[in-house]
């Protein structure tokens, strides 16, 4: 009886380990995560419009249909990226996600405080290599450090009323994301 109880206890402990391991490993093994879904439509280091979700078809679940969305799937292995997008009339935001879909930075038009959201995206190592004491460290140049070499930049412009869709799309069409 005690022997069975011990086996059961061992099984429970092992089960707990299996549970934790699967939860922790899943993000790096998922084949249908947001990054994989975007990869199917977006080449590396260019801004691609994401189709507005419809009941029949959506690139990702839980997309906000009130937004025009473009995406830049970035790869920093060859060097930092320069990113810019003019802000649209209503509300524009730029959100950064790692390769495993963790949101590590987001900025909106008001926080940017100008007509254009402009920034440099680089890895922590590339940032460390930047020469000091040059005007590139000036406060007006926003530098975002990506925790992973690849990832996603989601550029969203609100369409507050249906008629504004084209204006939002036009603002996003001028977005750029390219190696320096």
């Amino acid at each position, binding site marked *: 009886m005690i*022997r069975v109880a011990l086996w059961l206890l*061992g099984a429970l402990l092992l089960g707990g380990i*299996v549970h934790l391991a*699967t*939860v922790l490993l899943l993000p790096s093994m*998922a084949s249908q995560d947001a990054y994989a879904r975007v990869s199917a439509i977006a080449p590396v280091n260019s801004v691609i419009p994401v189709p507005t979700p419809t009941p029949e078809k959506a690139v990702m679940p839980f997309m906000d249909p009130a937004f025009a969305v473009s995406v830049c799937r970035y790869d920093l292995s060859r060097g930092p990226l320069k990113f810019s997008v003019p802000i649209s009339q209503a509300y524009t*935001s730029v959100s950064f996600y790692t390769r495993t879909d963790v*949101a*590590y930075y987001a900025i909106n038009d008001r926080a940017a405080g100008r007509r254009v959201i402009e920034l440099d995206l680089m890895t922590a190592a590339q940032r460390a290599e930047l020469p000091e004491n040059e005007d590139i460290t000036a406060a007006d140049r926003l530098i975002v450090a990506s925790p992973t070499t690849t990832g996603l930049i989601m550029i969203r412009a*609100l369409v507050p009323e249906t008629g504004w869709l084209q204006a939002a799309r036009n603002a996003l069409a001028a977005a750029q994301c390219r190696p320096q």
Partner: protein
Amino acid sequence: MRLLFGTVFALAIAAAIGLGATWIALTRGTAYGGVTIGAWTAWPKNGTPGIDPYARAMVARTGELPVGSGDGVAFFARTDDAGQPLDGRCDVLLSGITPQARFWTLTLYDPEGRLVANSVQRQGFTSQEIIRKADGSFDVTVGPRARPGNWLPTGGVEKYLLALRLYDTPIGMATRTGRDAPMPSIVKRACL
């Protein structure tokens, strides 16, 4: 022989418990650190690098991208204020005001996060589209049949959920109560 039998037995139970617990955790939605106000819950931490491992695994499984914390915060409601699951065959009245935010959007999804087809192709409202009362509050009727005023069609689906996303908002991880963040009430009316 007994050792072999015990090992196989233990491994089988371990696999069943471990994988079963993972499956339940990821499909039932057991993310930590939620902010619940009435029927609405948000997970502001999911939009930061501090996202917990369960939420990360869930996001990886569904393929969604959480709203970044510098962008906004998303509240979800799966039930009405009485705790009854939202049923697309019933009329539900959403009324009240929303927390401080530059813009907000209200969207209806099926449980898998897909938009729901309906005759008028309306999947939600933005703060700019909504018709308000004189005091700034609003009513939205969520239901299968057309209603005057703000009508959000359910397409008659059995189960749905509502997302209220606040953009450029002070609401976030520090928010705890409905006094900081007054969310609209969700009350079930008549059913088909």
